[in-house]
């Protein structure tokens, strides 16, 4: 039975968003002129959060519930909150959410590190960043759909300001576009959630209580696409993806990292946790549609990336392509597919953050992101160059780096599904790795290789903070690629119940 009070475990979980919240208060009280102090405080809180998440992961094996437990969560607590409508503060973690939290924590630290140079309105910058963090962490620990949705929406406020104030290019247009499209997406989600609340007859948002309900087919028929599309918008599902290239490309480096690396994952996470988990029949009914859409994502994003000339746009479209792989994995509706999708979320999170970080460093030095104007940077900035190369290689699914593990699972899972459509789509998806290779190598060659340019004379290679950020992310990428069992051991047990539910 799940405790209804704030147990120590639940308190720790709540701290993952509590620490950022407290940091917000602290930063708000600091004078805006004390930039150094503000930076250190933010870094401290990010590190603290990372330590906390690491601790939780370490404690997971000891606290994981037995297989087949009604609520397969650790540190769970279901604290009554509102009784009209009936809402609880229901927190807990399983392997998947722990993995996502680890991702968020890592990228948070790196985000602060690469923002070390932010001087103008630094106080605001870090405050909004912490709000974003709080929202994301809250999302990953929430198992009451209301609080899940609430934390998800919380991320909207800072996103707009971070892009609008600190962004580059058509920042205001892009920020607005991003926010409006995401909000429209959550409109669908909201309708779906209210539908679950009433159609279940339970008048509850408790995920696992709802999971026990067999929703009528006609309800699933409309509720599943509503929820999956709603979250899919955040997951950059074709054709609702265009917010992400614009938004991510015009955001400041750290925020691009966080948005593309973690925030987007909330979409894929929601698709799995809510839409597929609660409405398996709807999933089976609709999956072919979303399979095709996801396949389009993959190949389409890759081809557009081929045509882009702005580094950030290249990576943003490659994100569209790679996030397509997440939804593609879901569409397999089997263990490997789902597991591959989760692995891909983690892997792509690290990768895209890494690439955005590197692009940011290049931009801050050369003041251009046009690959036409760049070249020969490997000579000037060897460290950054090597990092970029490794990230690109991981992006094109090179074995030994994280991307390959995820792709292998996704492809095997998707191909194992019987319908011919799945097999055809899988073939297309696999062929897309060639296109990926084309645009990534093209980028690498144009930016890093070739004769060094005179105008780049005397550029400084990555400083300590930047190196730290790069190393952290690269470490994640390599560890997952070389020793995938470290990651799968964490998530496999938590994917089982979802897959069983899907088969129901």
């Amino acid at each position, binding site marked *: 039975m799940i405790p209804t009070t704030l147990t120590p475990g639940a308190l720790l979980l709540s701290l993952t968003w509590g620490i950022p919240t407290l940091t917000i208060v602290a930063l708000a009280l600091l004078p805006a002129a004390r930039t150094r102090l503000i930076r250190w405080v933010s870094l401290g809180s990010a590190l603290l959060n990372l330590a906390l998440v690491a601790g939780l992961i370490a404690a997971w094996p000891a606290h994981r519930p037995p297989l087949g437990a009604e609520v397969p969560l650790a540190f769970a607590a279901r604290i*009554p*909150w*509102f*009784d*009209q*409508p009936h809402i609880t503060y229901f927190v807990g973690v399983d392997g998947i959410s722990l993995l996502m939290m680890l991702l968020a924590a890592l990228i948070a630290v790196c985000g602060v590190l690469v923002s070390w140079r932010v001087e103008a309105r630094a106080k*605001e910058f870090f405050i909004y960043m912490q709000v974003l963090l709080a929202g994301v962490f809250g999302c990953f620990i929430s198992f009451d759909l*209301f609080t899940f949705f*609430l*934390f998800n*929406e*919380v991320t*909207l*406020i800072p996103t*707009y*300001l971070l892009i*609008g*104030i600190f962004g580059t290019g058509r920042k*205001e247009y892009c920020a*607005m576009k991003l*926010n*409006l499209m995401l*909000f*429209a997406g*959550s*409109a*669908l989600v*909201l*309708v779906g959630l*209210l*539908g679950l*609340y*009433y159609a279940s007859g339970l008048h509850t948002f408790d995920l696992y209580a709802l999971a026990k309900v067999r929703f009528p087919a006609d309800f699933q028929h*409309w509720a599943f696409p509503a929820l999956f599309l709603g979250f899919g918008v955040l997951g950059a599902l074709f054709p609702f993806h265009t917010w992400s290239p614009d938004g991510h490309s015009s955001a400041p480096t750290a925020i691009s990292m966080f948005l593309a690396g973690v925030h987007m994952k909330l979409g894929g996470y929601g698709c799995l946790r809510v839409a597929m988990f609660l409405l398996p029949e709807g999933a089976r009914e609709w999956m072919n549609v979303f399979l095709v859409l996801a396949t389009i994502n993959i190949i389409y994003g890759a081809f557009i990336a081929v045509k882009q000339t702005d580094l950030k746009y290249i990576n943003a479209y490659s994100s569209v392509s790679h996030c397509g792989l997440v939804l593609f994995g879901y569409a397999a509706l089997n263990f490997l597919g789902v597991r591959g999708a989760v692995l891909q979320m983690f892997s792509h999170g690290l990768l895209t953050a890494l690439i955005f970080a590197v692009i940011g460093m290049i931009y801050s030095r050369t003041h251009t992101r046009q690959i036409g104007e760049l070249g020969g940077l490997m000579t000037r900035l060897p460290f950054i160059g090597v990092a970029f190369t490794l990230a690109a290689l991981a992006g094109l699914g090179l074995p030994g780096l994280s991307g390959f593990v995820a792709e292998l699972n996704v492809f095997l899972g998707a191909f194992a599904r019987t319908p011919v459509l799945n097999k055809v789509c899988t073939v297309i998806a696999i062929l897309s790795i060639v296109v990926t290779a084309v645009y990534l190598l093209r980028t690498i060659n144009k930016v890093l290789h070739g004769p060094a340019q005179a105008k780049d004379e005397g550029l400084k290679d990555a400083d300590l903070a930047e190196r730290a950020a790069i190393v952290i992310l690269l470490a994640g990428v390599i560890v997952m690629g070389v020793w995938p069992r470290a990651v799968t051991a964490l998530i496999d047990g938590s994917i089982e119940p979802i897959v069983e539910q899907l088969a129901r």
Partner: protein
Amino acid sequence: MNLSTAILLLPDALLLLAPFVVLFVDLFFNPRHEARPVLRALSWVLLAVGGALAAALCCGEREVVFLHAYRVTPWMLWFKVCFTGAALVAARMAEGCFAVADGHPARLTRPGEFFTLLAFAAGGMSVTVSALDLITLFIGLEMATIPLYVLSGFYRRHLDSAEGAMKFIIMGSLATAFVLFGYSLLYGATGHLQFSAIAAYLAEHPGDPLVRAAALFIFTAGAFKLALAPFHMWAPDVYQGAPLPVAAFLSTASKAAAAGFLVVLFYGPLAPVRPALAPVFAAFAAATMLVGNLGSLRQTNFRRFMAYSSIAQAGYLLLGFLAEREYAVGALLYFLVVYLTANLAVFFVYATVRGEDVAAVNGLSRTNPALAAVLMLAFFSLAGIPPLAGFNGKFWLFAAAAGAGRYWLVLFAVLNSVVALYYYMNVIRAAYIEPPAADARPVKLPRADALLLFVLVALLLVLALWPAFNRAVFAAAL
């Protein structure tokens, strides 16, 4: 009648006393007709009312009936809280308008009358929600409306102001005519003015067409005061013409009163008719949101902008009437309190920067970070973004509609709030991204005002996260 019942009547008594106190102070203790003394008088009385309300809510009975014509129950008290609070905040906003130099467009004169009328209006509203028969209801509504006619035309030398007031009066009178016609039909059908008697009659003959016709005519009055499309068209003009504090009061207390009026009737004597009117509520809600949001898209004048925005909010509010009483009234109250708080905060910020145009807050985050933060939080609350209470308020109402099975309406409403998010964020963009105007300089806030703003913003967070308030309003509604 013992103390615990009498205490329920105390707030109303004080509130109805307030205008006379103000008048008295103005006549005998305010020779040079300054704002401060009368304002102080009004503020103290209203604070007393607030205290009385708190006392009544804490340790009052569930209900008290006075002369079969007047009733006070907890959920009514919550409405009175809205009126009092709005009046208090509006009054504080007004003080600045009396202080500004002569010739300034925002300049107000004759504080005594101003505050008296304000108090009268508040009193009338509180009578409206407590009415127990049609006469009281009518008196309350008129008492709440007529002072607002005057206040909205309070700028003596503004043609805009007079024009707005004139339109207000003409259309208001038509609405009054409609509602009176409705009363007359109701009276004709049931033969009574007493709610209890009407309810009894309806219990015997549900679905009497005459009654339903009456209900429709009566609904127009609420629709007019709530500014539901297509009864909304007065609002933008009147808000623009009216002094800023009056516009604030119109968009908050007056709307709350209208909502209260509809609740009193459609969850009171006319309850049996309500289900048949569900399509009416749904359609009017949809139309109102759409019109309000479309209207606000391209406004430059701040008060006009807020008029349309509050029209849209009224549209959301109407969704509540699709639910059954025990959920609806609670949800409506929650939404109202939150909406009032946010709206008052926004108006307050503009009152402090003396802005005629939306663009008056350009670069506010540079000149007045605190004010800018207040503005941002208030607008995000209006837009319904967590963790601000506006999110919950909207969510409760959407849940009401969903509970009635109207998912398409919910979707429409949420997509509307996407549009709303667009124009609200435009203001935030102005405050945070636009550069400040050349002559912009930090505004020095009086301590009281700063405190007030802080309380308003804090409320936006507390009401969202602290379940006790939610529990209270829902409990009060039962």
